[in-house]
C-alpha cells in the first residue's frame, strides 16, 4: 500500500526512481481468448522477427506470465519506444475443467489445465502493480459489459496505470467497435485484428501516446 502511494506521488511528479526508461513494462491484460497472445506475437513478429507465445482456440492457453524484453518499436517520425512486453494469462472468475473436456482434452489434461489456469489468474492480478502501462485486449465480438473487464480497468485506474483498449477481432462480422467505445468512453479504444495485422500501425501510434 505504501509503495503504491509512493508510485502515485512519483508518477505525478514525473520522477520515478523505480523505473528506468528502458525498463518500461507494457502489459497485455484481458479476459481469456481475447487475443492477448496473438497481439504479443504480432508485436514481436513485426519488431523482433519472432513469435512470443503459443496460441489456441481453447481458453487459458497462456497460464503463466511471459516477458519479452527490449522490444523497440519505431513510428513514422523515426521516434523509438523500448519496452518489456508482458503477456499475461486471461483473468476470469470461474474455471471449470469440464469445459476443457468439452473442447476435446482428456480428463487429466483438463484438470491440470484448470489448476494451472487458476494460478495464472492469481499471477496476472499480482503483476498489475509492476506495470507502467497496459493494453486491455477485448474480443470485439463479445459483450464488453462483463464484470471482469470492468474490474480490470477499474483496478488499473485506481493504480494510476495508463490504459488503452485494443478491440480485437474487428475482421469478424459480429464485431462492434462502437459497442466497446460506448462501454468505456473515457478510454482510448483502437480496433485491430491482431491475427491479420489490420490497423496495427494505428495501434503502435497509440502506444507512443500511452508511454508519454
Amino acid at each position, binding site marked *: 500500500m505504501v509503495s503504491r502511494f509512493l508510485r502515485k506521488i512519483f508518477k505525478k511528479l514525473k520522477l520515478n526512481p523505480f523505473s528506468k526508461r528502458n525498463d518500461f513494462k507494457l502489459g497485455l491484460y484481458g479476459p481469456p481468448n481475447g487475443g492477448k497472445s496473438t497481439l504479443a506475437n504480432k508485436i514481436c513478429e513485426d519488431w523482433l522477427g519472432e513469435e512470443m507465445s503459443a496460441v489456441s482456440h481453447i481458453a487459458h492457453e497462456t497460464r503463466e506470465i511471459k516477458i519479452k524484453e527490449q522490444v523497440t518499436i519505431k513510428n513514422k517520425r523515426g521516434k523509438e519506444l523500448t519496452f518489456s512486453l508482458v503477456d499475461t494469462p486471461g483473468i476470469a*472468475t470461474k474455471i471449470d475443467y469440464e469445459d476443457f473436456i468439452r473442447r476435446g482434452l482428456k480428463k487429466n489434461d483438463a484438470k491440470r489445465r484448470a489448476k494451472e489456469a*487458476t494460478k495464472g489468474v*492469481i499471477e496476472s*492480478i499480482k503483476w498489475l502493480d509492476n506495470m507502467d502501462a497496459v493494453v486491455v485486449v477485448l474480443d470485439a465480438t463479445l459483450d464488453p459489459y462483463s464484470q471482469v473487464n470492468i474490474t480490470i480497468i477499474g*483496478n488499473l485506474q485506481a493504480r494510476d496505470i495508463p490504459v488503452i483498449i485494443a478491440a480485437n477481432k474487428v475482421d469478424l462480422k459480429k464485431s462492434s467497435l462502437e459497442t466497446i467505445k460506448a462501454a468505456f468512453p473515457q478510454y482510448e479504444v483502437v480496433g485491430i485484428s491482431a491475427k491479420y495485422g489490420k490497423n496495427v500501425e494505428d495501434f503502435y501510434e497509440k502506444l507512443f501516446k500511452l508511454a508519454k
Partner: protein
Amino acid sequence: MVTFQFVPFHDIEGLTSAKRVNKLLNIVKDDRIVIMEGRLKKSEETDLIEITMDEIDAKFKGIELSVIYPDRSKQAPITKIKGAFATLLLGDRQGMTIIGPASIVKKIEQNPNRIELVTQDSVKSSRYRGKNKKKR
C-alpha cells in the same frame, strides 16, 4: 431452486477487507446467490477473484460477479456532492453487488439499463426445449 441471500451494508462495514471477501465467498460456496447493498472496493474485487481462484476445485467452479453502480459522470453536481458526503459518513452504499456460484449462475448479463441472471438450469431447459422443437 435458487436461493438468494441479502447482505446489508452494515453487515460488512466493520469488517476488514479479507473478512468481507471471505464472508461473501462462504455464502456463495454454500450455493446461495449474494445480493449485497453497495459495492466492494476495487482492490477487494480483485481479492475476491484471487481467493476464488485459490479455492476452485472439483466441486467449486468459481463465481459469477456483477456490480450495478450509478454512473457518476451523468449525475448533477449537487447529487455528486451529496453522494460524496454520504459515502464519507456512511460508507459507499450506492449500487448493488451480485455474486453467484458458477455452478448455478451461468452468466449475469449487464448493460446500462438492465441486468439478466441466467441460471444453469434455464440454459439446460432451453436446450431441452430446442431439442423437442426439432423432433416435432
